[in-house]
């Protein structure tokens, strides 16, 4: 066959032309006849009992559809993992901005006034707003101990290592909440009629999550719920679980009114009420040999889950498994927990716990380097995982990764050694201090542990009589390139031009459940299933004698036409099968945590301006091994985009809280990087391949979120001598740290205390 390879080439994005011409249809671009607009009345307090709800008589309430928890036909919860989050508060408010009541009206201008005209009186209860307050347990807001979930990972006997240690290095590190800040706010339209049930069109990542949640909420059977994903204007995890909530609200209003209802949040509502990245605190206590080798240690990782369990258990799981970084721990004890506070639940955001625990690990490696008296490069070199060694969960590294080579290449690409030397010299004078820093890390692709087995994903490929092929998956496109990459894989498997393959719009009446579009699983897990299903089409045609082993697209078309004339449809499905050698123990949290890890070394170069206290990132090298790169342009875009978000996480994006409510819920005062704020982000790939993924692909989407923050803080330390241990690191934090003590003070790392 002479068809050139489609996998590995930068074919244009499937829906790209619609996007660059403004023709792409997002949910807010859709209007249905007779449609109402919906709005949400939310709690003004962090915790308390609702005493009374009254309606201002100046509003003509008869024109409005009003829904309370009493109108819920099924169970009042957002079904996800524990089903502890209500769709609408019935008695007790557990966080600010919690949905209490829903309104709908044909005129969206009249809605806002009506929302303000609903007065809710409360009997307040004490509330808690930090990890420390939650741990104190003087107020219990969830379960019996405020603990949403905990894990314990044990490898070897940590108690025995302390006496052998040349150094015992301790450190505490923390990360703040971060808003996903997709540019398209959350939104859905719901429609209802008794015959077909509920249909929802929305901006979302996981059609079948919404489907499941609506069955529970509406008390409806599977076939009375239809969920359709519209073009989605960014998600980053922020549209993983939350769409079930807003879809539930629109569906309740649609059921009550019998009319279609659109709810699209404005920016302020989206920021104040929906999920963010979990704030975290990590404590390390590490036994280190005099050569800088880790002998063993204890890691305590705690995340703030907010008021309900939602996805915290799985975010915690990923954070737990990544807490040891890409290093060899002969023995380790990792204790982790997600605690409840009276803030809106924190949720999925690119990286999903790993950016938090890896930030701590990487800052701690720099600390170990200082204590031992070796360089940040050397401490990593001496502790890197090697093939044959095992991770903290005792997963043996079977692939031939060479982290030393990745490190060498990243150092070379960034001209690390020369710059480090030059900056040390130049920093002796002037108010602009330059620094260079590194981070090494890994990111597991796919669901954790036995997760993929439970998901049991199903993928379809359908051929039409004209020889065009449709990929049928519930995997959603929201910028990452799902449509394109999966079509490339199907085209390659069938030996067809890319143009002959299309992807079906995710619609639960059309596509099977190929799992949620999360966890860097789409290219690797779903891609492999698409490849198998596509091969199934070919096998069917070959087996029935309609097609030879080698064929041209026109012969494929003729074969499809013949097959369909005789059999009506030509479809092939593939279901996930766990690789034989994957072993995972959910009880002991031990075994093969992920089918594959991607690996990376990032280098950041910064300038710290001691006049303005601003940190600017001047250059950024991102080197990673992600298996086969299916589409180089899209892959590079995943990395540059992730690095940009992570620069925001490190230096710009600070959520200001007041009693559990976000105060700066506007783009004006929650600052994300703009076009003038970012360095050149230089992206380099290593491709080792991976036995599990399609064509050897691994996950890529979340990886770039993990490394930039620690690399940047390492560079800031190089520039200023201050080992900062918390992000976001804003100019005021730098000012405070550098002025707490006289400017002549030696900020050498041996200085104990702050930072």
């Amino acid at each position: 066959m002479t068809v050139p390879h489609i996998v590995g080439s930068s074919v244009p994005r499937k829906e790209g032309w619609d996007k660059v011409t403004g023709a792409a249809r997002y949910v807010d671009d859709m209007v249905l006849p007779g449609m109402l607009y919906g709005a949400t009345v939310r709690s003004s307090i962090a915790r308390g009992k609702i005493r009374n709800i009254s309606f201002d008589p100046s509003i003509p309430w008869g024109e409005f559809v009003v829904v309370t928890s009493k109108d819920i036909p099924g169970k009042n919860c957002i079904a996800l993992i524990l089903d502890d989050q209500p769709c609408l508060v019935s008695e007790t408010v557990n966080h600010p901005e919690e949905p209490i009541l829903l309104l709908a009206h044909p005129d969206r201008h009249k809605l806002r006034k009506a929302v303000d005209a609903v007065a809710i009186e409360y009997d307040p209860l004490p509330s808690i707003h930090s990890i420390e307050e939650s741990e104190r347990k003087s107020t219990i807001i969830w379960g019996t101990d405020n603990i949403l979930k905990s894990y314990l990972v044990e490898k070897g006997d940590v108690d025995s290592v302390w006496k052998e240690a040349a150094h015992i290095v301790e450190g505490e590190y923390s990360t703040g909440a971060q808003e996903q800040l997709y540019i398209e706010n959350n939104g859905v339209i719901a429609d209802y009629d008794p015959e077909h049930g509920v249909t929802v069109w929305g901006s979302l990542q996981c059609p079948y999550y919404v489907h499941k949640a609506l069955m529970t909420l509406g008390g409806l059977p599977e076939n009375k719920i239809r969920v359709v994903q519209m073009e989605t204007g960014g998600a980053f995890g922020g549209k993983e679980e939350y769409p079930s909530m807003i879809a539930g609200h629109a569906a309740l209003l649609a059921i009550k009114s019998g009319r279609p209802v659109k709810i699209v949040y404005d920016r302020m509502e989206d920021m104040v009420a929906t999920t963010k990245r979990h704030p975290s605190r990590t404590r390390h206590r590490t036994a280190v040999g005099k050569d800088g080798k880790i002998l063993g240690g204890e890691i305590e990782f705690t995340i703030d889950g907010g008021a309900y369990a939602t996805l915290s258990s799985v975010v915690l799981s990923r954070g737990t498994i990544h807490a040891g970084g890409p290093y060899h721990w002969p023995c380790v004890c990792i204790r982790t927990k997600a605690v409840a506070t009276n803030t809106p639940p924190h949720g999925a955001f690119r990286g999903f716990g790993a950016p938090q625990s890896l930030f701590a690990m990487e800052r701690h490696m720099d600390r170990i380097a200082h204590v031992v008296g070796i360089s940040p490069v050397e401490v990593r070199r001496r502790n890197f995982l090697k093939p044959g060694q095992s991770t903290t969960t005792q997963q043996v590294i079977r692939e031939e990764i060479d982290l030393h080579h990745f490190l060498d290449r990243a150092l070379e690409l960034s001209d690390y050694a020369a710059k480090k030397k030059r900056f040390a010299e130049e920093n002796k004078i002037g108010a602009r201090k330059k620094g260079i820093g590194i981070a090494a890390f890994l990111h597991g692709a796919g669901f954790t542990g036995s997760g993929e087995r439970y998901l049991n994903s199903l993928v379809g490929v359908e051929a039409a009589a004209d020889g065009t092929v449709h990929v049928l998956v519930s995997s959603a496109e929201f910028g990452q390139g799902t449509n394109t990459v999966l079509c490339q894989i199907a085209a390659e498997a069938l030996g067809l031009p890319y143009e002959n393959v299309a992807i079906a719009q995710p619609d639960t009446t059309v596509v099977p459940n190929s799992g949620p579009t999360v966890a860097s699983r789409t290219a690797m897990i779903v891609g492999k299933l698409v490849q198998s299903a596509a091969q199934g089409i070919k096998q069917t045609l070959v087996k029935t004698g309609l097609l030879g082993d080698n064929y041209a697209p026109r012969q494929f078309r003729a074969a499809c036409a013949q097959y369909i004339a005789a059999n009506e449809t030509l479809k092939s499905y593939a279901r996930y099968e766990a690789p034989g050698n994957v072993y995972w123990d959910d009880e002991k949290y031990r075994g093969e945590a992920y089918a594959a890890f991607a690996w990376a070394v990032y280098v950041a170069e910064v300038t710290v301006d001691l006049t303005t206290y601003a940190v600017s990132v001047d250059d950024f090298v991102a080197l990673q091994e992600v298996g086969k790169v299916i589409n180089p342009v899209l892959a590079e875009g995943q990395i540059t985009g992730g690095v940009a978000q992570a620069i925001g996480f490190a230096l710009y994006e600070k959520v200001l809280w007041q009693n559990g409510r976000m105060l700066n819920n506007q783009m004006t005062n929650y600052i994300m990087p703009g076009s003038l704020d970012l360095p050149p982000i230089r992206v380099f790939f290593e491709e080792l391949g991976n036995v599990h993924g399609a064509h050897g692909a691994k996950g890529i989407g979340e990886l770039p979120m993990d490394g930039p923050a620690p690399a940047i803080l390492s560079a800031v330390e190089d520039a200023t001598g201050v080992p900062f241990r918390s992000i976001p690191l804003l100019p005021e934090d730098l000012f405070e740290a550098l002025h707490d003590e006289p400017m002549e003070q030696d900020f050498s790392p041996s200085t104990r205390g702050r930072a």
Partner: protein
Amino acid sequence: MNTSAGRNTKCEISFTVNGEKKRVLVHPMERLLDVLRHELELTGTKEGCGEGECGSCSVLLDSMLVNSCLVPVAQANGASIITIEGISTRDLVKPLQEAFLECGGAQCGICTPGMILAAVHLLEKTSAPALADIREGLSGNLCRCTGYMQIFEAVASAARRRVAK
């Protein structure tokens, strides 16, 4: 425009949108963004923040690049407005859109119409923009997906193609 209308009454606004004369009966303080999207069904112009920070609602108003979420429609009376739908029909814009596709300048696509308008505005003023000009020219438009690198590349590539012609 009938300015004698009371606070809550609608008034007639006339303007040219994408080369066509349009007349709408709307509240004078209605946002231009909403009039474009709801009255004229030009949904390519997107709302991101509603406060002039993100640039997703960018349109050209008498050749100026503006955030249509900050423009009361009364202010657009008599003006000529170009949206993404109108600009897409211009020959000069096609190579820019192609460059966005080739270079990976569009991911989720929600900021893309605004980015394209900002880029056109820049390329009309500066035929061969340096990287610093591109960064500056797009500084009113936020993108959360790309990290901007591939957008810069797309704009630079479109400018090169134009110069080559």
